[in-house]
């Protein structure tokens, strides 16, 4: 016995040394989780270096869940979730509610009139808008503006915000760790007892947000028009902020229905990362979230994007230097070919030694920048393989486009090298630990929630890198052959007005 002890001990030490990378298999090594009876799951990652934590709630709802006529609703709702409850954000809710109810009646009338389109009675609409504005003013007697922000800020909340994407909506804040209960209280109340304040006036803010991001920004301007033709049916088609026309016509009933459909505990997951203890998180989760009633699983209509049968192309005019977007319909995220295309994107544009960057930016000096993304719109559904770039004057978007095609054609004919696949794997492995994803509580919370909300697997990103190791150059060639065809292509070009047409 004694004899064998030493070698065994050495072996153990060796194994410990060799397996030093802490998360060899993924985040599940470090993350503890529990689920309340109503279906809401919490993920806790404890680290006690600094007395802070990040809290995040991710809801599986995004612009991909919106139907025509209600685009932008997920994002609009995210704004509403900052407006308070019957206790937060008001001095006298009973009196305020009387006005809010009256506003809803007027709001419904206004939306109904608006939707008559050409036949709408403009004078009536103006009168309704004026009345709404007056009532909104009247609510101010009772409203305490932006009180959620005030509570969080006074308690040292930082990074307080929310974001809406195509796939998910997330709410987050960083707080000193002794404020854990405050986070639970506010986050539970804002979803359980939300009051839709400023429902009509917030449209003005969102209209400005849209003007800033889509109408006066060349990237947003091109992107919106580009995706609008790349898809004909799937809701990835419309921008997250939505069409101005829809933003102007949401009714309260639609918004309430949206809340009841998607903001249910079994469609929400929470992460707490930082200087907290699992037992505390558990106790507080039970105290604050267990009375949220479980809901029906939200409907997820399956929009099958019809197969594209010919190249689509849009040229938009904007006062900015030219930009290029190329997109190809690609695979559903669960298909192996989607993984194959991720590697391909990495080989094309990750790092200065990648194919497109070295050839088109560094050597030929055709482009200022070039970037390939394996999923342009999101990861819940099949998306586009996207290549975007800016030509360098005097080179044109046309030249850049052709140069990109040549690279894609080559991928269909010649296998990539072993060195390229190894590099792609190394880069993917490195990115599992990259600073922004790990060091900060909030980014880590975001990452682990994406893993579970979209892919239902805490170790999804780690497993994906493992799976990459099995991808062969031949598979990459085959996937390129399937995807990079003319009839599967959408091209978006942005040019200055005076330039007229393709250069």
């Amino acid at each position, binding site marked *: 016995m004694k004899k064998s002890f030493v070698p065994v001990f050495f072996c153990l030490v060796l194994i410990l040394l060799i397996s*030093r990378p*802490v998360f060899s298999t993924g985040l599940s090594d470090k993350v503890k989780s529990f689920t309340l009876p109503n279906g809401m799951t919490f993920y806790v990652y404890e*680290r006690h*270096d*600094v*007395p*802070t934590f990040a809290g995040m709630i991710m809801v599986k709802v995004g612009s991909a869940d919106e139907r025509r006529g209600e685009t932008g609703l997920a994002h609009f709702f995210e704004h509403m979730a*900052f407006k308070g409850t*019957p*206790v*937060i954000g008001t001095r006298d809710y009973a009196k305020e509610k009387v006005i809010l109810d009256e506003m809803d009646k007027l709001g419904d009338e206004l939306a109904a009139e608006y939707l008559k389109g050409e036949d709408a009675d403009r004078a009536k609409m103006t009168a309704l808008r004026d009345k709404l504005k007056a009532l909104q003013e009247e609510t101010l007697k009772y409203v305490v*503006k*932006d009180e959620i*922000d*005030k*509570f969080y*800020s*006074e*308690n*040292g*909340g*930082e990074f307080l915000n929310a974001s809406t994407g195509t796939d998910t909506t997330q709410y987050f804040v960083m707080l*000193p*760790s*002794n*404020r854990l209960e*405050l986070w639970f*209280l*506010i986050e539970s109340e804002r979803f359980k007892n939300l009051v839709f304040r400023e429902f009509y*006036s*917030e449209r*003005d*803010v969102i209209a*400005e947000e849209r*003007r*800033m991001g889509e109408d*006066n920004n060349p990237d947003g301007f091109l992107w919106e028009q580009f995706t609008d033709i790349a898809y004909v049916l799937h809701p990835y088609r419309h921008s997250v902020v939505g069409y101005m026309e829809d933003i102007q016509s949401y009714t309260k009933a639609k918004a309430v229905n949206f809340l009841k459909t998607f903001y249910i505990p079994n469609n929400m997951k929470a992460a707490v990362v930082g200087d907290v203890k699992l037992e505390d998180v558990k106790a507080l989760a039970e105290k*604050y979230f267990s009375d949220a009633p479980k809901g029906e699983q939200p409907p997820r209509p399956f929009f099958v994007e019809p197969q594209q049968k010919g190249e689509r192309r849009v040229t938009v005019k904007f*006062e*900015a230097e030219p930009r290029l977007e190329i997109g190809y319909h690609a695979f559903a995220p669960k298909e192996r070919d989607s993984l194959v295309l991720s590697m391909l994107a990495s080989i094309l544009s*990750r*790092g200065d*030694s990648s194919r497109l960057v*070295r050839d088109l*930016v*560094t050597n030929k000096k055709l482009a*200022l920048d070039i970037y390939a993304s394996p999923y342009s719109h999101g990861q819940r559904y099949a998306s586009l393989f996207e290549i975007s770039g800016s030509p*360098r004057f005097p080179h044109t978007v046309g030249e850049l486009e052709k140069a990109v095609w040549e690279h894609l054609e080559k991928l269909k004919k010649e296998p990539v090298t072993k*060195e390229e696949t190894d590099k792609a794997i*190394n880069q*993917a*492995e*490195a*990115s599992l*630990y990259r*600073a922004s994803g*790990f*060091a900060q*509580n909030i980014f880590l919370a975001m990452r682990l929630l994406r893993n579970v909300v979209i892919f239902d697997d805490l170790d999804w990103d780690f497993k994906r890198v493992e799976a990459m190791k099995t991808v062969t150059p031949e598979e990459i060639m085959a996937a390129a052959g399937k995807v990079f065809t003319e009839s599967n292509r959408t091209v978006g070009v942005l040019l200055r*007005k005076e330039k007229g047409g393709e250069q």
Partner: protein
Amino acid sequence: MKPRKLLALLAAGVALVAASALAQKDPRVLKFPDLEFKPEKPGHLRIRPGVDFYFKENHEQPSLSVMILVKSGSLLDPKDKTGLASLTLQLMKSGGTKSLAPDRLEDRLDFLGSTLYGAASSEFSQLSLWTLTKNFDESWKLVTDVLMNPAFDKDRLETEKKKEVESIRRRWDYPSSVGFYLFQDLVYGKDYPDIQRTTAKGIDSITREDVQAFYDKNIRGRELIVAFAGDFAAPKMADVLKATFRDWPGKLAAKPPLAKAVLAAKPGLYLIDKPDMTQAIICLGHLGINRLDPDNVEINIMNFIYGTGSFNSRLMREVRSNRGLAYATFGAVEEGRDRGLFVSFCQTKTQSAAEAIKLIKDIAADITAKSVSAEELETAKKYEQNSFVHKFDSPLSVLRQEISNKLMGYPENYLATYIPRIKRVDAPKVLAMAKRTIHPNELVILVVGKKSELLAQLKALNLGEITELPLPKE
């Protein structure tokens, strides 16, 4: 027990239950003690005269970040060659080394999954490395090779120059950049050294010899700060650094002269016509304060209330929340090498530009005229005090705090006195600071947008003559 008493007790019980149910919903019932937090200092070791090693170990993940910082930047650019410092730093990485061709260097870094960037700001130049621990040795060799033996490949210089010239062409693609750059021009004057922009002519004129000379004069052998955060062992790393920098002289970097900032433009309204826009960009303000201003901590309280406190700030509250005039708006008195900016920003639909300007002007004037409310002051102070801890919430931020305090020339006890200074701020102090730093009658107001729809409403503001400015070429 008498029934009445029982009833009373029951009623009390019901009241208690009701109170606690309600209490659960009101954040006001939760009371938290102030967080007792003493900021941690990173480790520091002088490797040799002129080479300082700052470090913060953390072994949670098998990776580390390294910053190598030199105290010289674009303020040392020759006047007609603005951009030289930035090009030099970019080219140190992209231009290869004496023993590694540019392609090979990039191939290796990418293959290791390591990232390396070189960049220059006005006062400082920096190489930043991120690598997995297992690839540190080779990555470190590459970085030190880049630092000590850059080759400045000629064709790569052409690439970097052409990229920069293309970026200049694209400078006005985003309307908000038009606002920010040209507002600075107005406030400081175009020739003020700290705000110089690259020009195509200047970039074109830069030769390989210029880059080499800048490197030889301002980077090679100069004083260094080497900072490590993450998975490494400090004593071992100190040995590595001692060996690496054995022959590095660590001489003081040349210090560019400090140019006095004077408000260059006449206060008033300036308009740049961008007829394609459906929104107007509004930048409003004048000069700010010196970074060593005696109120450089206290000013954060005023800024929070005025325009940095998100929805708790007056700008966000009035411009966005109460009137829906903008999605983005903020404002602050900022610090600078000599003077920073006082700037207020908003982006609003063309039709409401004048309304927004009037509103922001009133908000600026009001904070210099009346005391802030006790409630505003309390929110701002609590925020500063309780969020202080976030400045130290990752190994890299612990390093950055310490290094930036050193570089800015803040006193040694800057962090230790931060909270006590915040606690002492009262309403008269805020008013005094506002009166001293914000001058409602000296506002330079720049509007970028569609002139044909702006001119009439701007005239109606009665702010005197409206000076139209052309959109400069670069």
